[in-house]
């Protein structure tokens, strides 16, 4: 250790371009870190590899050990049987798609409108309202779900998709994300449009929103993914098989099936994970910008 560092502390070390980090001057330590990161990446992907391999196995081989990490059989029947059996799997998929799309479109609209107002319009109470909204980020849904349930049952909306759409019609995180984006638009742009006689709705719809496409894309992907994966709200509000969304229906089914049908269950999980995987591969940039950007900008 000491020899490593002392041999490298020479001030005359040639300046290096690129990322210079703490580990730079200790090649030994640096490689240990890199090796650890690469090694630890295997357990990160292993569950997905196992899921894929198992989803393609015929029933009797599903629990074979040693486990296979790449498909050894190509038993596509598992995927077909999801859609052929009397289990309403296709209905779950359609329900989830419907709810996720409606919620996403609604949030794009409500969050961008509110985000624009907080970024560019001056109005009484703006600061207070914005702060109040942000407090909802730390509020567990389980704290508010009981009264929400009573509201929905009063409106006769239990076991309808409205019950899980309405509470998600807006989202403080989305408002925050859009506000951060709109703050980067130059004030002069909006002033100029106003001097030309445009009202705020025209400015928002014709100027600000078209410029916000990258932020809207981030928000759309994040909201779609969250709603697609959401389990708690459907669990509370939906109870008939025809209304269930994918996470709820599938988990209920896996309990009915038991572990006897691992390969079919894994095929179902595979189908459920697929849209997220595609979104991720297509739009990794937008996802990371949306989720991570807010951390760095503070």
């Amino acid at each position: 250790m000491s020899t490593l560092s002392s041999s490298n502390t020479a001030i005359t070390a040639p300046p290096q371009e690129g990322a210079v980090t703490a580990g730079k001057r200790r090649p030994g330590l640096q490689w240990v870190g890199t090796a650890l990161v690469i090694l630890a990446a295997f357990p990160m992907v292993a569950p997905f590899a196992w899921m894929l391999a198992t989803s393609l196995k015929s029933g009797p081989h599903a629990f074979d050990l040693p486990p296979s990490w790449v498909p050894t059989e190509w038993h596509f029947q598992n995927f077909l049987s999801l859609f052929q059996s009397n289990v309403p799997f296709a209905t779950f998929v359609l329900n989830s798609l419907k709810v996720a799309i409606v919620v996403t479109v609604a949030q794009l609209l409500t969050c961008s409108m509110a985000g624009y107002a907080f970024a560019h319009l001056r109005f009484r109470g703006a600061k207070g309202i914005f702060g109040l909204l942000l407090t909802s980020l730390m509020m567990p849904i389980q704290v508010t779900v009981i009264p929400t349930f009573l509201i929905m049952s009063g409106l006769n909306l239990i076991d309808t998709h409205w019950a899980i759409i309405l509470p998600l019609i807006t989202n403080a995180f989305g408002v925050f994300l859009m506000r951060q984006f709109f703050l980067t638009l130059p004030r002069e742009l909006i002033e100029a449009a106003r001097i030309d006689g445009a009202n705020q709705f025209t400015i928002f719809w014709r100027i600000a929103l078209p410029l916000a496409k990258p932020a809207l894309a981030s928000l759309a992907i994040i909201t779609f993914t969250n709603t697609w994966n959401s389990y708690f709200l459907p669990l509370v509000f939906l109870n008939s098989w025809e209304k269930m969304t994918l996470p709820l229906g599938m988990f209920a089914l896996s309990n009915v099936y038991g572990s006897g049908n691992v390969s079919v269950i894994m095929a179902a999980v595979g189908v459920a994970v697929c849209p997220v995987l595609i979104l991720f591969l297509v739009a990794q940039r937008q996802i990371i910008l949306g989720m991570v950007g807010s951390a760095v900008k503070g």
Partner: protein
Amino acid sequence: MKKASSDSLSAYLFVAPTLSGYLLFVLGPLIAAIVLSFTHYDMMSPPRLVGFSNYARLISDARLAVVYKNTALFAVTAVILTVGIGTFLGVAVNKRLPAFLKYILRTAYFFPVLVGMIYAAMVWKFLFNRDLGVVNYYLHFFNLPPIPWLTSSGWAIWSVILVYVWKNVGFTMLTTLAGLQNISEELYEAARIDGAKPHTVLFRITIPLLSPVILFNVTIAMINTLQEFDSIVALTNGGPGDASRTVVIYIYDKAFRSFDMGYASAIAVTLFVVISIVTLLQLWGSRRWVHYA
């Protein structure tokens, strides 16, 4: 003058959908939950005011103490592990690695963040199977005894923590990577010219300048762990017994299985108070160690 007032009118219109959503589904229900906590309500007959009796029940409820203990253990351990490991991963990946290797690593660590917890937990449930599971197979391979991951009261909560950390560590890693991009090269250059030792660089430059990102990650992880529901339900359903049951699951059970809405609301109010205190403490504590550049 006229312009300003029309401006604020349109501003209120812009904010109206979000504000009404907030009032109807966050602030309103929060106040309603506080009111309900003073009632007895089973959904069959109308709510009946019972004063503080739900709160008196809280004190004598032995299960509540257990679920709060589990919640604290889960939150503290999962936050430390997720943020600690994730920050390490971020610093370790922020090197001159081949671009494709960086891409693969980023993808591998970040993908679980996007997968639904319920799906991830369904896969892990099979991997954790005591006799047929993959994890125990490899333990056996290294001559270690099998572990009853989900079925023993000692292990259950640790399995839930493990899955939480596995799923969320990539988020911390990516935010850390992004934060490191913002640290000026010149600082490292200067430190090198001054002959600073690597650990000095780490503790005097990297970590202080990362502290806002670390605070952000701690806050997010705290919020998420305190309300984690899906993974616990899917992996252990709170069991065995109450061994891995947390407050949010207890609230759900009381409200929607026992239809004890008043008591469940009282528990929800305690959770709200706890979360508010934790958030305030975090804000206060962060003033002492977070360094804003």
